């Protein structure tokens, strides 16, 4: 029994905070786990990829095509992570793009978002694509994309431990002034995934 989850997105989106909350809760639930953070050279703007491995696993990196879930904070980054997702896995993807400078400076093109979603569906049946930034804004917390995505992961029911454990650790991982907004964003994320993954 194992649960491999790949997180992918862009520097500054709060991926490391999200995986730290996830890891802490898995640890509290008594699960074996190891996670690995891929650091890039730039402090800002580069791809961030993190592997979270829970259960009967050993090494810090997820084998190809074996992740139970991919949490993509940015649509084009989801394409970069597809080598890891299992054909039976679930992909959660934020549809709000962040253009790399190669695109903004006119050197490369950014693919059409709907085409990205189609492409992802061709690789893995369970794709949940939604605008996490919009959801975060609705909860009054535009910087809460990471909490929406983490909530969505919990909402899929894919985690091998009680999902409320994740919400319970947020108070110790997040500064008090941001906590309420973060919890709102998290709950909205849970709700978004629950719409899709209801009792099946």
């Amino acid at each position, binding site marked *: 029994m194992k649960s491999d989850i790949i997180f992918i997105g862009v520097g500054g989106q709060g991926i490391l905070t999200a995986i730290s909350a996830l890891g802490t809760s898995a640890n509290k639930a008594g699960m074996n786990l190891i996670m690995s953070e891929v650091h890039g050279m730039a402090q800002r703007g580069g791809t961030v990829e993190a592997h979270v491995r829970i259960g009967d696993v050993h090494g*810090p990196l997820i084998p190809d095509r074996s992740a139970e879930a991919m949490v993509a904070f940015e649509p084009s980054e989801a394409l970069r992570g597809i080598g890891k997702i299992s054909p039976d896995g679930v992909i959660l993807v934020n549809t709000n793009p962040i253009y*790399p*400078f190669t695109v903004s400076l006119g050197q490369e093109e950014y693919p059409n978002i709907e085409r990205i979603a189609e492409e992802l569906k061709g690789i893995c049946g369970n794709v949940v694509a939604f605008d996490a930034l919009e959801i975060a804004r609705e909860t009054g917390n535009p910087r809460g994309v990471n909490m929406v995505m983490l909530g969505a992961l919990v909402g899929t029911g894919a985690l091998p431990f009680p999902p409320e454990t994740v919400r319970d650790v947020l108070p110790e991982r997040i500064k008090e002034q941001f906590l309420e907004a973060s919890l709102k964003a998290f709950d909205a994320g849970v709700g978004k995934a629950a719409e899709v993954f209801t009792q099946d």
Partner: protein
Amino acid sequence: MLLLGNEAIARGAVEAGVDYASTYPGTPSSEIGTTFSRIAADAGMYFEYSTNEKVALEGSAGAAVAGLRSFAFMKHVGVNVASDSLMTLATVGIVGGMVVLTADDPGMHSSQNEQDNRYYALLGNMPMMEPSSPAEAKDMMVRAFKVSEDLEVPIFFRTTTRINHAREPVLLGPVEDHHTADFQRDPGRFVTVPSVARRRHPWVLQQMEKALQVAETAEFNFIEGEGDIGIITSGVAYKYVLDAIDRMGLQCKVLKLGMTNPLPKGMITEFMGSVDKVVTVEEGEPFLETQVKAFAHDAGLSVQIFGKDDGHFSRLFEYNVDIVEAGLASALGLEYSPAEIPALDVKAPSRPPNLCPGCPHRASYYAAKVASKGKAVYPMDIGCYTLGMLPPLEAADIEISMGSSIGTACGMSRMLDEPVMAFIGDSTFFHSGIPPLINAIHNKHNFVLSILDNRTTAMTGHQPHPGTPMDGMGEKAPMMDIPTLVRGFGIDFVEVVNPYHLKETIDVYRRALQHDGIAVVIPRMACALLTDIYKRKIGKEIIPYQVDQEKCTKCHVCVERFGCVALTLVDGVVTIDETLCDGCGVCAQVCAFDAIQEVER
């Protein structure tokens, strides 16, 4: 407790009662330093960011010969800098326990080469330990200090990126007491004149014999599983082996080595004698493989040994489960079909790292390129400013190691007809820029040196350096003034300029290029990331810039020559991404048509 590998390593040192720790920041080892910086005062220990790795090693050596426990840590290429002292310290030995950590970077996530530092342990006759996970690294640190103290030699502790930057639950142990400094004069041991050195070499060989006994019984060297196939492995590769044999359902015996110098020859020989085939699985060079083959030869074993020499495994880059599965299958002649990576019709645009919006270095490079009309040779140095190599700035022609910009500029300016403009960061200058600069003056070389002073060691996470008013303990420190320093060397062209004042900066570079001899230009402006943190703290708003489309002539100089990542070009129209813009205003000065202005609030 869930700890990052580097935090677990720091914790291990604290549990061992470490008294003195020193480093120069370098990825993937940097967070060990940031952890100490946070806890040193509370833990009752001393921690410093030294000017470079050699000094860090020497400081720790000084503490360890006085009976204290000390810890010097650095990235793999940092050991090259420290190696002059390390190779001799290894023969002199120490009195208190001392651990020297090397953080190797297979795959070169943030490094200039992929050297396998395990060979330093062989070269210097140092016992070596190699953990396979953060939790093991913590336990091994505690043990390393004890072994070091027992054998009176420093222990070489080899980690890799996947240990330093992995996170897992770690069981905390008790914290030992600190030690009292008590230096016993012993010049016949510690002063390495040749007559002393001749006694030290046999001594260290004798200590390595004792270390062999430790290796033969160490709890970090163990055998798991049953079968006719034997796998010998170390480091994080051990974890990939465990994942791989689970997935393949492979019946085999695994010899996991945690102490990898000296190798436990007896244990390995016995292991190889108990199986039909041996596969060595290790990242990097065939360090284990070469030695275990020699052991098999010495014991007259005819067992087949597979690994890198026969091409089943690579000497290149980082390993993972898939690579290890493929290698094992290839070595053992098993069926293997790799996971199929789907081909995509749509392609993700590349997202390479770049200089941040507001980065003062971008302005400095732009000014230097304008002043030299792009016709100089540009020796570059190591730091985030190396990204000045990217288009459109392309301000880098050669970069090999810390401080090498100035050294290579000496040779190039002497032999080439083109002007030479070298760039080095402030922290790098203190690290290893001073001797080559003195060389340049003494030998009357002729080039422009920019010391890019952004008031921090930015690349590794904003550590202090001798030019900043704070030290590793978080205490006030005297601030070394770079212009005063270089004027003291006798350089008469030394100009400090704010790179955000573009015209003035270009003018300084023009005059510097006219100067006969060494001209030092010091563009001084704090790292934009630090400034942002400060602005947030004092509640000062960042006011972004915008493009006045009526004034914009669509010449695209801002995008094509300056290239700040906040500029956006869509269908020939340039706009500025307000969420990215740092408000530095340099692009507004690049624009000849006054088309870029502050957003009105």
